């Protein structure tokens, strides 16, 4: 196919009319009629062709053979050429600012549209000495800035991508699965955990003159965030991880040891029973049962006690009270006697003597105190000893507490049952041994006993959108009658069958008697 440029521009063909050509005359009076009636296509085409030839660098008749035709040499060279071309493009790309990079990439694909943009080959600039207009500085700057932005963005993306790849690689190195299954290095290779720390930090942080707060401050300020290395809060429980079994829990225990553990278990059960009984006594036991509950009549009778109008009895102790009151009133009316002068003097004397006696006694006691230092020492020792003992007891109590579970949540710890085999369940051989208890439960409860896991209870999740279904009964009015009728029919049947059996029995007895 001919390239588009070489398509010949033929004259516009006119409809061929048969017969001698008609001479048509048209006016050429003004410009308009000229335009309408005179055919200028030939001229225009000629001009067009001339311009076209100008664009493509002259008509092909003017061109040399080498320009028009080319020798198809081996494919390899062509490839090389292609490669070179691409290389060139890339180099250009590198040099070129980023905003033009995408464009050049597209250009590399040889789209026709871009070929056209490049201008036609061979056309000379119509203005031979054209001065290239420089792009304004503002525009260049803006473009450059844009360029930088794009570059930074691209860098960011590239980096993040790299990071993701690295992480993935790391992950692949560690493990594919969610649990670690490969253990290929010694975790405790460097036993000293402080080896990797910086020397300065070490000096600073280990210095005994620096206070804790300052140390934290230094840490945070030097972006060496203060990370507590070891959890200082240790679990204080005294319950061992594996509680050793009682000797009576052997699969083939000795009698004494077995009895011992049986007793242990029995004691626990007895305690439980006692508690249950106590609860029963104190709660349900306090109230009468339904058949012994007081009736309304009894209630009324009780309420009417002491009201004779309602038929209740009246207690007869009221009179005595009245008498007592009378006596009291009499006491109030007693007159106070005035003291005589002599009496007053004597009283004063007595008081003074009393005062002096007391003073002397106090002095004597004070004197005695000095003498009885020994007894005081004894007393002090005794109190000290008492305090000491009290403290020891308290400490012992606290230690004892640590040997058991504690309440860490609102649910109480429920102790495990002791695993025992009753005397008749012991087989004495391994083959028929049926294990007691569950080790899983044992482990779980042990965690609770050691205060590692708080006690919990399974919560049953409520159904949020439970549908309410109305169970309607559509009564039609005749149900009662129907029921009565059915009952009657049933009764009849029963009677009938009863009669039948009776008659059959009668007959059988008769037969027996006959025999």
């Amino acid at each position: 196919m001919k390239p588009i440029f070489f398509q010949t521009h033929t004259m516009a063909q006119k409809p061929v009319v048969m017969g001698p050509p008609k001479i048509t005359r048209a006016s050429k009076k003004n410009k308009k009629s000229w335009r309408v009636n005179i055919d200028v296509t030939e001229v225009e085409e000629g001009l067009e062709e001339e311009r076209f030839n100008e664009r493509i660098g002259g008509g092909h008749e003017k061109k040399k053979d080498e320009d028009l035709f080319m020798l198809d040499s081996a494919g390899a060279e062509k490839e090389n050429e292609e490669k070179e071309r691409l290389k060139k493009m890339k180099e250009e790309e590198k040099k070129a600012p980023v905003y033009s990079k995408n464009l050049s990439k597209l250009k590399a694909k040889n789209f026709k549209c871009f070929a056209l943009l490049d201008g036609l080959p061979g056309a000379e600039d119509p203005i031979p000495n054209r001065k290239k207009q420089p792009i304004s500085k503002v525009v260049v700057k803006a473009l450059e800035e844009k360029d930088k932005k794009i570059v930074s963005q691209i860098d960011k993306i590239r980096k993040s991508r790299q990071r993701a790849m690295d992480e993935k690689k790391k992950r692949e190195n560690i493990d594919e699965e969610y649990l670690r299954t490969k253990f290929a290095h010694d975790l405790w290779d460097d036993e000293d955990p402080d080896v990797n720390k910086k020397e300065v930090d070490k000096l600073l942080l280990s210095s005994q003159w620096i206070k804790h707060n300052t140390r934290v401050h230094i840490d945070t300020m030097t972006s060496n965030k203060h990370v507590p290395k070891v959890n200082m809060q240790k679990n204080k429980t005294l319950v061992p991880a594996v509680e050793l079994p009682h000797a009576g829990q052997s699969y083939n225990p000795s009698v004494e040891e077995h009895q011992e553990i049986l007793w242990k278990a029995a004691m626990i059960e007895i305690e439980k029973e006692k508690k249950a009984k106590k609860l029963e006594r104190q709660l349900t036991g306090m109230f009468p049962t339904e058949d012994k509950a007081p009736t309304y009549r009894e209630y009324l009778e009780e309420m009417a006690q002491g009201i004779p109008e309602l038929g209740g009895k009246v207690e007869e102790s009221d009179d005595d009270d009245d008498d007592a009151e009378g006596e009291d009133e009499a006491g109030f009316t007693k007159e106070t006697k005035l003291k005589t002068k002599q009496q007053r003097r004597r009283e004063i004397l007595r008081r003074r003597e009393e005062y002096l006696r007391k003073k002397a006694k106090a002095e004597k006691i004070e004197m005695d105190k000095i003498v009885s230092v020994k007894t005081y020492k004894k007393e002090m020792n005794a109190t000290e000893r008492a305090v000491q003992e009290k403290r020891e007891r308290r400490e012992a109590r606290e230690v004892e507490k640590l040997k058991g579970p504690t309440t860490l949540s609102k649910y109480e710890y429920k102790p495990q049952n002791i695993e025992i085999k009753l005397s008749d369940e012991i087989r004495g051989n391994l083959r028929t041994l049926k294990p007691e208890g569950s080790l899983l439960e044992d482990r779980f409860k042990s965690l609770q006993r050691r205060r590692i896991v708080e006690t919990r209870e399974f919560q049953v999740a409520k159904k949020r959108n439970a549908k309410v279904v109305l169970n309607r009964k559509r009564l039609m009015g005749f149900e009662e009658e129907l029921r009565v009728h059915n009952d009657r029919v049933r009764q009849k049947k029963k009677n009938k069958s009863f009669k039948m059996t009776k008659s059959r029995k009668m007959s059988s007895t008769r037969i027996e008697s006959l025999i």
Partner: protein
Amino acid sequence: MTGKKIKKGTRGEVAKYISRNSALKKLMLGLKDFRRLCILKGVYPREPKNRKKVQGGSTVQRCLYQVKDIRFLMHEPIIWRFREMSAFMKKIKKAIHRNEKQRVERMDENSPKYNIDHIVKERYPTFIDAIRDLEDCLCLLFLFATFPTMGKKVPNQMIRLCQRLSIEFQHYVIEARALRKVFCSIKGYYFQADIKGQTVTWVMPHCVPFSHACEDVDLKVMAIFTEFYTTMLGFINFRLYNSINLTYPPKLAGMVESNADIAEDENTRVYALNRALHRVIIAEDVEKPDDIPMYDDDEKMEEAKKEQKAVESQRKLFEGLKFFINREVPRESLVFMIRCFGGEVSWDSNCAPGATYKEGDERITHHIADRPNIANKKLGRFYVQPQWIFDSINRRIKLNEKDYALGETLPPHLSPFVEGWRREGDYIPPEEKAILAEASQDSSVMEDGGNENVEENDEENENGEEMEEGEEGDSENDSEEGEEDSETETEKVEEVKIGTKAILDKAKLKEQQEKEEYRLREMLIPNKQRRLYHKIMKTRKRNAWEARKMTAKREQWEKDNAETKKKEKAAKKAAAKETAASVAAAE
């Protein structure tokens, strides 16, 4: 001038504690993640000294954490992973609901994972720390290794990992000959091993199907613990293996890494357990006791040396012996025990893979069976019940096989852990005494007669010595007597107690039961009458005691006066005769 007003709740006990909800808020985690984090990091809820003060006057039992702990948790980088994971879960759920399969696949591949190596290191800064805390880890992993497929809460992968790690650990114990004590209880097998100088005890469940009976147990929590412990045991195993010149991970025979049924794994586990591991360098790593005095006391030093010797001999207890396990005997535990002391084991190849020799092998020394009798017994081997192994390990010598023969009523299986509990002068059951005495005599028989293996004599000697020092001082002096003598002796002891066996046994049992019932009745006496009851009983006892005293006195008196009486009688008689004679003479 007034001081600065202190804001409420910022000082003292209140400021030290934080409720769980506020901890969640502070860490910006959900409850599930928080629990996981706490378990992994070893942070537990605390009970304050004064709950009322801490909780602002309320006495409701709330779950409280220490602020220090929470601050410690805040620095954990794993938290970021948890957050990522929760975001990831949202995304993937969305994708699943939109049915975007490709997206789900891609997301699955890139799902966030976390690594807890550093936490293991942090919680156990040194290797010995880790071993000190090994007990919990072992119990849990050995338990999980027996699980069937459990569904979502415990993934199969975890169970399989537990199986692998537990077997690897067992292999270490075998290779290091570290096992010391065994106790077969009704709950499971208790093992005690000496690992790097630390006593480690763990439980292995009996070989019975798993029952889903316990509802109280939160399996999810247990799974998190197991997750941590698997990583821990993995690294411990690595180091332990390296310490005895074994390559880690070992190539375990018969262990298939496929997603095969877990149910069948018990057999393969035993198969793996019965094969020796490949050692890089075969070296005698027997530590010789140093002569550096550890104790000031010479006696203590001597004791320590003796103990060392005893342990050394215990390690070689089953060396040179060949065992055959009958099909009804639990294989896994017994293979482990026997191989820990140098024995060789095999079983019927029809019932499980991994048998190394056949039943007919003539070199078999012990045939372990747990049935009343076997039809075709072979000569030249002992037929014993499995308890022989447990008791021999605990006593550190090979016990008399006759006592554990098939069909024999076994002596009670006593707990090896009890010794530590007993103080001096405590009661020791007569059965244990008898066994101790017998054991010491056994060794002496070996010395004297030498009808059994000559090779073992040395060990037995040592054992004898060690038993002596382990025992109470009274029972071992008469160890020169022979085996038969010992039997008669035991019979004598029984005679003193119960006389003829068959009849008195029942009577004794009945009596015991009656006593038990009586005691129970006694316990149920109401408090009001209890004091009176005790008074009555006391007076009765006193009376009885007095009566006994009196009778004893009387008897003593009679004994003393018997001779004098006789003399008197004789004298009287003589006097009477004399008088009679004199009378007669007079007449």
